[in-house]
């Protein structure tokens, strides 16, 4: 009934149209309001800056992306495990939430020296920062999910004196999937910004750099066009991770729950 190419087109059209609109407004802004290019570069300049150094941006994007994906996966696993612990009792929750919150509210600049001393400079530290930054949403949404179980189903498990672990594995975790998916969506973006911030403080030198370095450098040199090109790549990165997480999440939800 539907041509596959037309399907793809209809998927891509609206965002592209909006993109064009946004670019037009942005362009008009820079021209009409005479916004100086050192503040907000014209879209064309950004494209030119990005295109001119495409290979470099791509490489940097890949490096940062790899760290972000690593940090995200670590958060997903550790976050779910932590949430399982948190769901066990209100005491554990009360006792441990402060430490989870600490991880979320601590500025990376404050703990960067510790991280570097213990993990050294390089990818592993960038992943660690990305992990720290993206952990909390998973913990909190998974915990909420694990606790929002249908009480009737819980009764069913109680009837058979199911052990906590069994309830967790066979009831709470599957029920929490929609919440975990929602948390993972949030985390995916945070993992990317976490990797970039990680590169600011613990990242690579200048010979092999990620987006964090490009952003820092362009900002120092006031090369706003380059800066925005790098930010654009990081957004693309965020979109890619988010898109992947969303698609997987949607597939799981559709398969398991028949909901969108």
């Amino acid at each position: 009934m539907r041509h596959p190419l037309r399907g793809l087109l209809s998927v891509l059209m609206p965002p592209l149209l909006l993109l064009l609109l946004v670019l037009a407004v942005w362009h008009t802004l820079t021209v009409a309001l005479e916004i100086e290019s050192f503040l907000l570069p014209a879209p064309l300049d950004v494209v030119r800056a990005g295109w001119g150094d495409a290979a470099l941006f791509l490489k940097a994007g890949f490096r940062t992306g790899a760290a972000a994906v690593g940090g995200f996966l670590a958060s997903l696993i550790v976050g779910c495990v932590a949430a399982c612990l948190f769901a066990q009792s209100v005491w554990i929750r009360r006792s441990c939430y402060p430490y989870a919150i600490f991880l979320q509210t601590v500025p990376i600049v404050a703990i960067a020296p510790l991280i570097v001393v213990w993990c050294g400079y390089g990818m592993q530290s960038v992943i660690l920062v990305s992990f720290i930054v993206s952990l909390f949403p998973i913990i909190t949404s998974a915990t909420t999910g694990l606790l929002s179980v249908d009480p009737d189903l819980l009764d069913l498990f109680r009837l058979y004196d199911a052990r906590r672990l069994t309830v967790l594995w066979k009831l709470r975790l599957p029920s929490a999937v929609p919440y975990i998916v929602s948390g993972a969506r949030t985390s995916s973006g945070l993992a990317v910004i976490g990797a970039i911030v990680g590169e600011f403080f613990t990242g690579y030198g200048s010979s092999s750099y990620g987006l964090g370095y490009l952003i820092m450098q362009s900002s120092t040199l006031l090369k706003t066009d380059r800066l925005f090109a790098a930010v654009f790549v990081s957004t693309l990165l965020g979109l890619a991770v988010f898109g992947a997480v969303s698609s997987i999440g949607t597939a799981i939800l559709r398969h398991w729950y028949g909901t969108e």
Partner: protein
Amino acid sequence: GTGNEPAGPSADAEGNAPIKVRLALNWYPEAEHGGYYAALVNGYYADEGLDVEIIPGGPNSPVIQRVARGDVEFGIENADRVLVGRAQGADIVTVMAPIQTNPQCLMVHAESGIESFEELKDLTLMMSSGAPWAIYLQKQLPLEGCEIVPNPGSVAQFLANKETAQQGYVFSEPYVVREKGGEARPLMIADLGYNPYTSVLIVSSKQIEQNAEVVQKMVRASVRGWKAYLESPEETNRYIHEQNPEMSVDILAFGADQVRPLCITAEVPLDRLGTMTADRWQTMADQLIEVDAIEAGQVTPSEAFTLEFLDPVAEPSTGEASTGTDP
């Protein structure tokens, strides 16, 4: 009210209301801004009929952007960034340069025995590797076996690991290192030949066109302030400490000691404080082109500064020291 309040603005000799101007700093208030604070504290700005508000900065303060847009009338920046800003279209002009020698340094541990840049070998260098001076340094030196990593913003790493060198300002980081029981030897970047003026006063060219008189007053008072600061910084330091309480009076005193020889050099004695030369601006531009910070032909170094507001008596007769158009 601790008795350290700057002399309040008062009507000037002709009885005009004081002119409000804002001065944006590029960092938290420190010794590198000492002269401007001295002008405020000692009432030199007020003497000129100016009501100056000094706006402290911090990391990544957009001073050039704000001055260029006219959000603030004056700003403090470093000379290489002025050129970078001009290359990006910011029409700003430097009107005085109090610190002749750039305080940027690379600290090594004293016990490492390293005394010069050429000896840097097998070290971890913590520096903002994207900054022009850092690129210049990398181009100039072989840096055999050196690993360059981001500057973490604190000297903890440096203290923890003897095999490191770290960027710093000569009047700040070495003090912190000493305070924590280490001993750092600063290698001045200026000695490599990369030596932009520091804490220069910038304005937009529009400001110069429209309010040359105000600029003139500002420069005059600032120069006075710097001279005063270099002589007796104590009272000003106490005021800076109030503005930036995390900076102790001791470290500010250390800073003032360090900044003095950077301002008064063999070429520039105290009475010519604030002056600049076209040669150095040209060199700076060439170096920036060399490190890819700007492109050739993007800036005309002679347009990036003017000496017209500095005391013409003290100037060697190079430029046409016109008094500027009346507002």
